[in-house]
């Protein structure tokens, strides 16, 4: 056993798998704990064998960037080890995501809650951007919530470095509903503004409690965006008609945001508006957003520990009482005669009385 293998097996022993909690296309996620401290962790086992070209690209990206990023609002990669032919990522365990919270109708969001979540999202994103990393898959599903309420950016499977001199990038990134128009138009040179658009959509979704721009296809996505925000003009977004996949999807007027977000404060709408500017270079940056008056205005952002959480427990009513009631009728003995055949007929015959008696 050489030094590398020895190191690997030592690391492997540190982490214990408990149970499977999810499965994706290229990975299985297990809940586990750290051997010494019993700290809860998640182990993401990357399936290697199925891919001809070796490791899946997203696994490489995830390891590459998460090894570098350590921030309160970014998921922490604790360790990486291999077992047999699999690659295992040890991540901190986070029990819920923002999508679950948005969909939980029993939760009520205060304006300060939304402010807190958006601020944490921007903080995590600013950290990625300052390290020249684009997340490229921001959506409520990928914003995980720790047990202490902190929000963390996760799933760096589509992340990429940016601001390198002039390499083409793919436009086939970001879940459609959160994808900015420049990517829908097939832009191959873009920047951090793509993530800001996604945050804008998430911000709107937090206020509406339903996805803000749910398009059925890529073309429909453009239509949905323009219907909500008006068609871009050449002054608003110079050069967009020259983008590779430019299509015309019809002219739509620009309705005021206030019509949809009736309860939002003026500051909130201003920030939302700046996140959803068509011209990517004019779109607010994460750093600027964190200095936006919305975050400084009252009410203060909710302290993370007080943010609404999903309740996973479900109460089941006690069954004993029902059973007791029926047994009290004193028919049980009569029904349980030893002969199976007779019993089934007898039951049918007796049934009417039971129902009549218990409903009676």
């Amino acid at each position: 056993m050489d030094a590398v293998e020895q190191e690997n097996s030592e690391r492997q022993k540190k982490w214990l798998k408990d149970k499977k909690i999810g499965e994706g296309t290229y990975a299985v996620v297990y809940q586990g704990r750290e051997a010494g401290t019993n700290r809860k962790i998640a182990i993401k086992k990357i399936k290697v064998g199925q891919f001809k070209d070796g490791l899946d690209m997203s696994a490489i990206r995830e390891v590459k960037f998460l090894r570098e990023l350590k921030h309160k609002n970014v998921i922490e990669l604790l360790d990486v080890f291999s077992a047999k032919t699999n690659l295992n990522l040890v991540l901190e365990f986070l029990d819920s995501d923002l999508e679950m919270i948005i969909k939980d109708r029993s939760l009520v969001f205060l304006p300060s809650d939304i402010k807190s979540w958006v601020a944490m999202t921007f903080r995590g994103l600013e950290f990625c951007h300052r390290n020249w990393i684009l997340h490229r898959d921001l959506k409520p599903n990928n914003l995980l919530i720790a047990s202490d309420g902190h929000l963390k950016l996760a799933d760096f499977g589509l992340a990429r470095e940016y601001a390198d001199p002039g390499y083409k990038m793919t436009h086939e990134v970001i879940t459609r509903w959160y994808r900015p128009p420049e990517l829908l138009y097939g832009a191959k040179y873009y920047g951090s503004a793509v993530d800001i658009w996604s945050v804008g959509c998430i911000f709107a979704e937090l206020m509406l409690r339903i996805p803000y721009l749910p398009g059925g296809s890529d073309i429909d996505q453009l239509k949905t965006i323009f219907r909500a925000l008006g068609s871009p003009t050449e002054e608003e977004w110079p050069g967009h008609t020259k983008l590779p996949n430019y299509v015309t999807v019809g002219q739509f007027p620009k309705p005021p945001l206030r019509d949809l977000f009736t309860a939002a404060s003026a500051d909130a709408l201003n920030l939302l508006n700046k996140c959803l500017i068509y011209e990517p270079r004019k779109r607010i940056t994460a750093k600027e957003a964190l200095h936006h008056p919305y975050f400084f205005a009252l009410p203060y952002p909710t302290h993370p520990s007080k943010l609404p959480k999903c309740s996973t427990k479900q109460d089941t009513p006690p069954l004993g009482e029902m059973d007791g009631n029926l047994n009290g009728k004193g028919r049980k003995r009569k029904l349980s005669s030893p002969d199976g055949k007779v019993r089934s007929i007898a039951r049918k015959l007796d049934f009417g009385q039971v129902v009549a008696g218990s409903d009676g």
Partner: protein
Amino acid sequence: MATTRAGGWLQGRTVRKGGALSSTNATRSSTPQQVQSTSSTIYGGGVKDPSGRTAEFFVRQSMDDQCPVCKSDRYLNPKLRLLVSSCYHKMCESCIDRLFTLGPAPCPICNKTLRKLAFTPQTFEDLTVEKEVAVRRRIAKNFNKRREDFPDLRGFNDYLETVEEITFNLINEIDLPETEARIQKYKAENAALTELNVQREEAYVRALREQEDQERRERETRAFELQREEEEERLLRESDKRSIIDKLETSDKDALKVIAKAKAQALKRSTARNASNSTAQSSALLLRSRAAQSNIVPDVPHAPFNDEYHAYESMFSLKSTYNDFMSDAVRKDREGIMRAGGYMVEEAWERAIRCAVAGLDLSPLVGLDDGIPRLPGLDDSGDVVMASA
């Protein structure tokens, strides 16, 4: 003669307001249910409340109802309808048509000149009440000052006193020319304020009506919701019953157990539904409890960054342009494809500069011998800590 008849009315016989009448008076089925005008003239006026609900007064059951002028009564003319003149005398529609169609003519009772259109339907049984109401309406139209319009209560009370005096004079016809002059004087002096108060009153009425509408809509939605829920519950119960029967037929488990299980399930479902209903209803309560909770852990004001990363930006400055092949590429990109996508060559420059200067300020790595490669210049959030900080 006519006055004794009218006096007879005042003696408390059963009278009804036309609008509130139900069809209980089966004694004369030929009595019209609706007041019908014998002529084509539509008489306006009378007393109406803002909602228009006040109805015309007329006597239905009384056969004694008689026109003081032509003496025709309800027996002869079932459609008899008596209207009131501006001098507060009654006569039937046919008399009005006969006497006043050719223009103004004197009242057959008091000789005051009357016009056909000045006749109004009767609202009150007692004509003195009718008169008083009409006078008060007229006065209230002009004398509509409110308490707010006076600096003190004394002034307001004096004003009310004056209004009452004028009203009394008009009703009892005391010093009529002088009273009319007073009204005219007041009108001229207070035109603007009167108009303002009229508008205020209208706005109030409108708001009231809107509120009523809103409440009615809410009631309707609630009722509909309730009905829907009940229907759902009924369907569920039926399907439960059917499924019990099916199960009892097909399975050979103990009948009581099957029923008990089904019942338990139904109970579980209904409690779950109730719970979800109550959570929806108690969202306000929840908000209140959230508000109470906020005192335990105080919310802190927003701080843009929790580290000092941007502090070292003062240690370098970016130029507006660099001699770089990428800037050429962007400049040559005449169609602006790179720019339209949001690519910024400035970011590439900034990144290069930052990479060049980052860490210049850090002390050299030490302590690699503990086996864990840990950079000394990182705080717990992993951000670079400035040596100067």
